[in-house]
């Protein structure tokens, strides 16, 4: 059925809502990235099979939803029974039947699968009451995890495409741009450029053609918010893009998706087809005469292609090398035409802004940083997962209240934001409000939303070396400061990590960084030295320990550590099995010995030892 007016869309919504109400309950099986990796698909399949067999009154298999990321990945696979939000964690296929018998057929709970609050030791039934969720504020992720992944009817039932209908029939392009400008929405892809201003510029350039592109490259290693949105709630991205296209007067759009995200491509493609079939995308959208089409462009594994000008070259089938931006890509972008490029999360915010109004949105968050930001909270934090908080929330609140603190109650050491362009912030910055400007001032960056928590076992020199190594690989090589400068910076950090550096090398790092920042062509080089500079700023002592004492305090840098087997060894032989150089010998039940001459310090024995009998020093 093609919808040829907004009235028909409203009718469809009423119908979908009525259909959903027929079911007394809804079973949501999280099929987000984390839960899938933990085997969620098997659980969803099992639910389907058992539900078909059991035939429960007032419930049909249609009320079983495979959803996108619900958020609390650490506890996955997750299953939620609505209404009531009964939240089951670490579900296994063998639990499925019991959940159905007790929580779908009846109103009971399976106590052992509930989340247990580590502080109070009490089980919590309703997910919204769990600390991890209670401190969040969801706008871009509002529908994610609550609706079936690729189900346009579910999306519409929840109010989806109402913003588009409003924009197309009750607003002009200028009005929409004003609304987005007033909302204060800043781009969520990293730099935080005002979205409304970008749209205005694009609209004001004289041109026969304009493009709207969604940046789904998500190159920041450690970030998966965009992946979760594209897979789990693709329609919100499409809706945001169509509204943007109408506002600036574009009829062609692209979504550039990272090649590592095959499922995002599949789900977006499905969503595009569903929207086209209903007349929400394509020619004469909702009978208003406005036409817009979206194509998916798959990335091919290059971090630099997240950068605007490189991305546009890649969309055009070329090598993704950035160009100097004397003229910005919003003026001269894809095929030299004016182009709006926004991040996935930026677009996902747009329908909500149009729907609820700029003033409502502008009230959320902090000064000049309205709204919320999604983060992937990962690393050595207890509650890993996908979160969304109001801008201005402190790092402490995110890491300790939502994140539940550090795994094993180890000391907090640093939090990394902004990926390879960002920095590491120490304990003393924990009360920093998280917004674009505060993070930049502290020497880090908002970035696209990776937030990686580190404990005392993480070496800051190693982290700086890691990011530089990443950037050396990913630098496109077009400009010399980035290609050669980052390479030399990487070598210098290797030197520090191997205990061969002098204090003079540290000042060389600073000088060289300055050159790379000033001289590089694009953001990759311009922000590339951030990780090394921020770790040197906040963790100077650790650098000095490597240099003066030839010691790696975190026990990570290989050249500076030794492994030993202590008398606590039970002789379980686990380490012998993993030691690639056969440096460990011994008999079952007897304390093993480690031959230092053969040891390559790979740390495999340390990682497998269950008895804390391997010591690093």
């Amino acid at each position, binding site marked *: 059925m093609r919808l040829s007016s907004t009235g028909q869309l409203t009718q469809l919504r009423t119908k979908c809502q009525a259909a959903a109400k027929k079911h007394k309950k809804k079973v949501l099986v999280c099929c987000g990235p984390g839960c899938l990796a933990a085997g969620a698909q098997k659980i969803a399949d099992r639910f389907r099979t058992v539900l078909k067999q059991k035939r429960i009154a007032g419930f049909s298999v249609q009320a079983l939803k495979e959803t996108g990321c619900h958020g609390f990945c650490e506890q996955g696979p997750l299953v939620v029974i609505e209404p009531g939000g009964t939240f089951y964690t670490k579900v296994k296929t063998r639990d499925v039947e019991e959940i159905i018998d007790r929580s779908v057929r009846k109103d009971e709970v399976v106590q052992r699968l509930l989340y247990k609050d580590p502080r109070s030791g009490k089980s919590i039934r309703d997910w919204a009451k769990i600390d991890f969720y209670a401190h969040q504020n969801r706008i871009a992720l509002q529908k994610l995890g609550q609706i079936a992944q690729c189900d346009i009817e579910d999306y519409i039932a929840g109010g989806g495409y109402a913003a588009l209908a409003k924009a197309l029939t009750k607003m002009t392009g200028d009005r929409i741009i004003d609304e987005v400008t007033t909302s204060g929405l800043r781009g969520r892809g990293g730099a935080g450029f005002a979205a409304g201003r970008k749209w205005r510029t694009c609209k004001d350039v004289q041109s026969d053609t304009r493009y709207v592109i969604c940046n789904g490259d998500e190159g920041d290693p450690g970030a998966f918010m965009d992946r979760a949105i594209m897979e789990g709630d693709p329609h919100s991205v499409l809706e945001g893009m169509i509204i943007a296209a109408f506002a600036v007067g574009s009829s062609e759009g692209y979504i550039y998706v990272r090649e590592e995200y095959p499922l995002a491509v599949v789900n977006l493609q499905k969503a595009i087809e569903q929207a086209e079939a209903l007349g929400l995308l394509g020619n004469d959208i909702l009978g208003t005469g406005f036409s817009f089409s979206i194509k998916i462009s798959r990335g091919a594994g290059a971090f630099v292609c997240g950068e605007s000008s490189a991305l546009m070259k890649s969309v055009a*089938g070329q090598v993704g090398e950035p160009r100097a931006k004397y003229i910005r890509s919003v003026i001269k972008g894809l095929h030299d035409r004016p182009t709006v490029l926004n991040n996935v999360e930026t677009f996902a915010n747009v329908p909500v802004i149009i729907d609820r109004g700029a003033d409502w949105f502008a009230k959320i968050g902090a000064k000049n940083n309205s709204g919320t930001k999604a983060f992937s909270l990962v690393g050595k934090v207890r509650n890993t997962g996908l979160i969304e908080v109001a801008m201005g929330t402190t790092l402490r609140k995110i890491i300790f209240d939502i994140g539940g603190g550090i795994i094993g109650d180890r000391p907090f050491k640093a939090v990394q934001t902004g990926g390879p362009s960002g920095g590491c912030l120490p304990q003393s910055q924990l009360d920093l409000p998280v917004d674009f400007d505060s993070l930049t001032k502290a020497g880090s960056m908002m970035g696209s939303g990776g937030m990686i928590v580190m404990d005392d076992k993480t070496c800051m020199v190693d982290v700086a070396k890691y990011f530089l190594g990443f950037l050396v690989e990913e630098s496109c090589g077009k400009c010399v400061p980035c290609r050669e400068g980052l390479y030399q910076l990487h070598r210098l950090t290797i030197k520090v990590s191997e205990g061969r550096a002098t204090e003079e090398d540290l000042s060389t790092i600073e000088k060289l960084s300055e050159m790379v920042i000033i001289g590089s062509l694009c953001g990759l080089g311009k922000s590339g030295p951030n990780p090394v500079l921020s770790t040197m700023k906040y963790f100077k002592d650790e650098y000095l320990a490597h240099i003066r004492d030839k010691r790696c305090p975190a026990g990570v840098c290989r050249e500076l550590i030794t492994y030993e087997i202590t008398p606590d060894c039970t002789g379980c032989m686990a380490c012998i099995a993993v030691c690639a150089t056969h440096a460990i010998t011994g008999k079952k039940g007897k304390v093993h010995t480690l031959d230092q001459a053969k040891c390559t310090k790979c740390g495999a024995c340390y990682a497998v030892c269950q008895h804390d009998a391997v010591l690093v020093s």
Partner: protein
Amino acid sequence: MNHDLGRLPAIFKRYPKSPESLIAVLQDIQKEYQFLPSEALAETARVLEVPLSKVFSVSTFYNAFSLHPKGEKVIRICVGTTCHIRGAKQIQEQLESQLKIKAGETTPDLKFSIETVSCVGACAKAPVVIVNEKYHGPVKVSDYKKLVKGK
């Protein structure tokens, strides 16, 4: 090496014959053959009317493309930030020493390839290893047997 180029026309048919389709075509060839045979590159250049040098430059710029055949089982180790600080390197070394190849290489019998990738978006399960399409995580150093032998 000679490769059956018979599967190429079907791929070319999916896209407009223009230089813009280059990356998409190469991606499909990569998927079909598990690498980009040199004959296929020449054919792509001819059909899309792009200089062979351009085709070659795109094939070598992007990490997704390989000019060498890959093993039946491709083991991709995530070395993204989260996986890195949760011990991806140990897992990489363990697999490398067990299979006697380095990341980026393929065993001579074409059974295994090891690759590294920077974040696959499953950081919550770090460290993550993907064998063919299947995600594993959190992976332990002692899991190498399961990864190598399992399906």
